[in-house]
């Protein structure tokens, strides 16, 4: 088991390196850089001297030299100093921007993950055990709709409904009155209310998928021979399902940390743009459109790292649950 963990961790490092290269390369691809946009302005202001000035600026911003040099500088600063560079747009340290945003993203993502589990498990088990019942069809129906709805549209629809019919405050992380206020129960409640729609919207896609996978797994397992053996021992149906079948069928749930989390993070990106939540998605979009290089590349790197960690955790959990995986 320990060797398994060590091996996985060891593999992570080269993977992260490659990801960092990919992330950086993607940012570097468009011609020009952040400063190119300012070229026109500067030429007006400084005329001939503009070129020299820009070269100097480039050096200051770290935009001079070849792409490889830039990459090397960037990656070494991250590894040795934990410094992700500077944002051109905001003129702040990228590390700060990331810190601000990442916590919220991870928070929403984890809450959504748990929400998805808590809802999917009973629905999935029920659908499988009472196959073809009314509820099974109903849930399947919702699952299909959930998969088909573009999540930003769902966000808009839900916001519309919440606003028109329930008079809820929507958009943003918390109501204006609470901004800057110290932490209090009321503030927490307010934030929680603002979280409801994003969590529902982001979770819906994953929820639909998870319920179907769970249902299919349980249906599959229920036909297996060990279930019959369990019944022949006199175990009650409840024990058979929740102890014998579930521990196998829940594997997709555990592995969802691996694939659901990046999906949630992705989904959060778009939804937070629509709902005005200060998460990584929003920052990333503006960084990309403005070629705010370090911000964009760092975000991609950080998000990928978190995803990798998530995958690792889910694989470890899987190995823990199923001894067959351990001994491979």
């Amino acid at each position, binding site marked *: 088991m320990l060797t398994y963990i060590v091996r996985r961790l060891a593999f992570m490092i080269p993977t992260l390196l490659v990801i960092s290269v990919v*992330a950086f390369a993607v940012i570097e691809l468009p011609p020009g850089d952040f400063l190119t946009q300012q070229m026109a302005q500067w030429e007006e202001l400084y005329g001939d001297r503009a070129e020299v000035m820009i070269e100097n600026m480039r050096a200051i911003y770290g935009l001079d030299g070849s792409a490889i040099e830039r990459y090397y500088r960037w990656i070494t600063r991250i590894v040795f100093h934990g410094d992700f560079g500077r944002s051109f747009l905001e003129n702040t340290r990228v590390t700060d921007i990331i810190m601000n945003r990442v916590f919220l993203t991870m928070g929403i993502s984890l809450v959504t993950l748990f929400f998805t589990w808590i809802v999917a498990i009973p629905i999935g088990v029920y659908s499988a055990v009472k196959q073809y019942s009314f509820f099974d069809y109903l849930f399947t129906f919702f699952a*299909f709709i959930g998969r088909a709805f573009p999540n930003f549209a769902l966000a808009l629809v839900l916001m519309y409904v919440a606003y028109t019919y329930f008079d809820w405050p929507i958009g943003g992380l918390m109501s204006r009155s609470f901004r800057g206020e110290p932490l209090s129960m009321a503030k927490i409640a307010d934030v929680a209310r603002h979280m409801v729609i994003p969590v529902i919207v982001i979770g819906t896609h994953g929820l639909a998928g998870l319920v179907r996978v769970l249902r299919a797994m349980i249906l599959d397992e229920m036909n297996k021979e060990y279930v019959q053996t369990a019944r022949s021992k006199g175990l009650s149906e409840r024990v058979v399902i929740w102890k014998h079948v579930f521990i196998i069928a829940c594997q997709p749930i555990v592995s969802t940390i691996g694939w659901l989390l990046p999906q949630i993070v992705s989904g959060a990106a778009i939804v937070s743009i629509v709902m005005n939540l200060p998460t990584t998605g929003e920052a990333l979009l503006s960084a990309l459109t403005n070629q705010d290089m370090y911000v964009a590349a760092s975000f991609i790197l950080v998000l990928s790292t978190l*995803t990798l960690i998530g995958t690792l955790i889910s694989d470890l959990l899987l190995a823990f649950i199923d001894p067959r995986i351990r001994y491979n």
Partner: protein
Amino acid sequence: MIKSHEYSEKDVDMTVEVEVPGKKDPQNIAQSQWKLIWRRFKKHKLAKNSLIILVLLYIGLVGFAEFFAVHDRTDIFRNRYLPPQTIRFFDNEGNFHIRPFIYNRTQQMDPRTWSQTTVEDYSQRYHLRLFARGFEYQLLGLFTTDIHLLGVEEGGQLFLLGTDQLGRCIFSRIMFGTRISLVIGLTGVFISMILGVVIGGISGLVGGIVDDAIQRLIEVLMSIPHIPLWMAFAAIVPDAWSPLQVYFAITLILSIIGWTGLARVVRSKFLSLREMDYVTAAHSFNAPMFYIIYKHLIPNFMSFLLVNLTLAIPTMILAETALSFLGIGLRPPVVSLGVLLQGAQNFQTVSMHPWLLFPVVMVIVIVLCYNFVGDGLRDAADPYQ
């Protein structure tokens, strides 16, 4: 939001039973496989009807979008944010007319409350017409005509689903947008599929270092959350490119990232098929590798491929919709359902003019249909009920 399509071993492992005992000809077996699948598919009414809807959509809208549209895609009218048209049979004096009609409308601002209201002009009735004359267009690029399915008498302005922020007819633009969205889904998935099968196949068949390298690459690509990566690629596309070039670029981008899942599964399928008994049996009478692939691996594989195709297309469509919605996908004047939704980015706007969200309905219909068809296919092809 974008479901990186979750392949599982269940998707991969399929053997199809042969219905007719005694007919041992492999050609016959392959054919009866397909017939069997088709027969079982037809039993799923939902899947069958969804397939019909999709076929109708493809033929109707991809070929004849202009025919179904009322106005041209870029026709701008002075009346912005008009709500959907009320089609009437009774006029405001209570008289009944058999032929449905509409009143023209204008937006007027109430000077006191600064709110906009829609005012109907009761002075003139404009009756609806079937196969009416409207704007000119090229039918299938062959000849010019101006006949449309639905239209209205001279002077009337028919906005079935209202107008958008620039005063364009939403219904008509949905017709055009659907065409683009439908096609982009197909082309993107097609490229993805080729990439996935080729790369996955090489990985599985060749094995060794090549296999390892490709697997690492796939892991890397799968670890990066897709939407940020898509966003990154999409934002790279220069503004200066023509809409057509942008279109191709977006298609390419969507498919480049989507192939990884398929490649993984193709590879494991090839790996497991190599060991399967019937391949060993074929080997035992010295059948060449190509023959084995052609006669045995491919038929077994095709149904699986088809299922995943139909399930991957909606992912593409949703992805394109999302990117275009954000402004980094397709760009005007190319109209896709995602581009249409750009006007609905702002919640305030939407709450005042909810009809801006109608393109979503079309997206949902298309995605649902594809999902039903895909599920139906999967159930039909998988004998382990």
